[in-house]
């Protein structure tokens, strides 16, 4: 009988850790626990900002996302889109969509539009909302949009020239835009650097939708008003959906997130208990020697 061959990349204990995580997280997906999601002040503020839009106001939704981060970025973005299209239908708010990161943001926008189709289908494309797809250039595209909207946008995702799109007439610079929903999975620094309400008189507010891991990074900007509000990750999505009154992807994820977090805390405690135990054993054996 041969000995056991060492199996591949990860040690056995790591793979057991992964397996326990998968089982723990699968349980609330199959049988939801239904823990209440307290709505934080940050999400309430962002919701109020979006809800403050009036007839004729211009809302820009810029997506610096990719399909890799779909399950973190899409829930809050879909909640924001649902709200935006509802406002477009009820109050005549104009919605401009585009992405500035890699080409992946174009398919990300297509994917979230697929999920929110009932909300934009009744609207008139070109008069109530427009999709410019991918504007290449990251921060350079954002700087270009701030100074010259028509020159930067040029053509929409279908190839129609910006001069032929009725709602784009009269939108020349960022000062003609009322609010911005900026969704990013990488670097949130570009939003306060290029599109700050403190720099452009007509721009009333900006909301940053970002990974929860980036929230500590944007807090100094939020504190100074360079970013007005934020909605973060799946947690923010769950809260935003509660405020919209229609639960979606975000709320479903939070039960699994709760168990995942408890598991992480258990691992930290176990690791430290084991470490302290082995350290005291080592120091005892050193004393005996």
């Amino acid at each position, binding site marked *: 009988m041969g000995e056991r061959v060492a199996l591949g990349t990860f040690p056995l204990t790591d793979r057991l850790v992964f397996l326990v995580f998968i089982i723990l997280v699968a349980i609330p997906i199959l049988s939801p626990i239904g823990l209440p*999601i307290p709505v934080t002040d940050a999400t309430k503020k962002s919701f109020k900002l979006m809800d403050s839009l009036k007839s004729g106001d211009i809302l820009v939704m810029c997506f610096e996302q990719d399909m890799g981060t779909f399950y973190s970025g899409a829930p809050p973005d879909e909640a924001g889109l649902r709200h935006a299209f509802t406002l477009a239908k009820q109050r005549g708010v104009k919605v401009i969509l585009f992405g500035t990161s890699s080409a992946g943001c174009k398919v990300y926008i297509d994917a979230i539009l697929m999920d929110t189709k009932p909300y934009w289908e009744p609207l008139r494309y070109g008069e109530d909302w427009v999709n410019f797809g991918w504007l290449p250039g990251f921060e350079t595209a954002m700087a270009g949009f701030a100074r*010259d909207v028509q020159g930067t946008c040029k053509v929409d995702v279908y190839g129609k020239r910006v001069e032929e799109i009725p709602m784009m007439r009269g939108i020349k610079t960022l000062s003609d835009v009322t609010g911005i929903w900026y969704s990013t999975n990488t670097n949130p620094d570009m939003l306060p650097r290029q599109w700050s309400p403190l720099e452009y008189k007509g721009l009333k507010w900006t909301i940053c939708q970002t990974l929860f891991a980036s929230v500590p990074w944007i807090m100094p900007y939020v504190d100074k008003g360079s970013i007005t509000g934020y909605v973060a990750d799946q947690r923010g999505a769950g809260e935003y959906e509660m405020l919209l009154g229609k639960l979606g992807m975000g709320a479903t994820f939070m039960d699994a997130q709760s168990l995942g977090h408890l598991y992480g805390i258990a691992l930290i405690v176990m690791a430290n208990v084991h470490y302290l135990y082995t350290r005291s054993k080592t120091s005892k054996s050193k004393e005996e020697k």
Partner: protein
Amino acid sequence: MALVLKRREIPIAIFAVVSLLLLADYFTGAWPDVAKETIGWAIILWMFSYVLGVTSLFRYHLTRIQKRSQYWAYSVVLIVCVFVYLLSGLLGGVGGFSGIPASKAFNDFLWLNVLAPLQTGILSYVGFYMYTIFFRGARTRSWDVGIMMIVTIILMLNVAPVGMALWEGFGPLGDWFKDVINTGSYRGIMIGVGVGLIAVWVRAMLGYERAFLGELSRGAE
């Protein structure tokens, strides 16, 4: 003449002139149309440069196939995928022109139902690695690491709904750490990053940082 044109000082000078032009317009508002036009040019240059990165990876896999390296068959799969996606995309409609609907549907299937799950799957490793970090690395070896671990646990219970269900205090306590302690420290880091950004820009203008030209920086030679 040709030797003069090949000198590395010319692209560095172009870099310096363009960035100083934008900064001068920002502070004085002297030539907004020139600044707008320059930014417009950069967006177009971005589009041309985007395709460049693909060619080096392409050449690498073609070399692997030629040399019959280990797992060269997978490189064949890769090259075939490139052409299948590109062809279906071009036939499905490109540049604002409409194409064959069946080709577009196949192209949409490839990015939504094949590429997207693969990308999500590969990126999701980070989630698993977080647990190995906790399991192997989260050991309180000193007092400062202990502070970090305690704050980590408080924030984890602040962020997950179960924390507030266990004790309501995790909400305000976690928010205080996030809004006050974290904001103060990140402010210091941000000032450092901002100053560093300007420092690197000045070094690039003076020719010390030449990585963007594909050369080693002065001092690293």
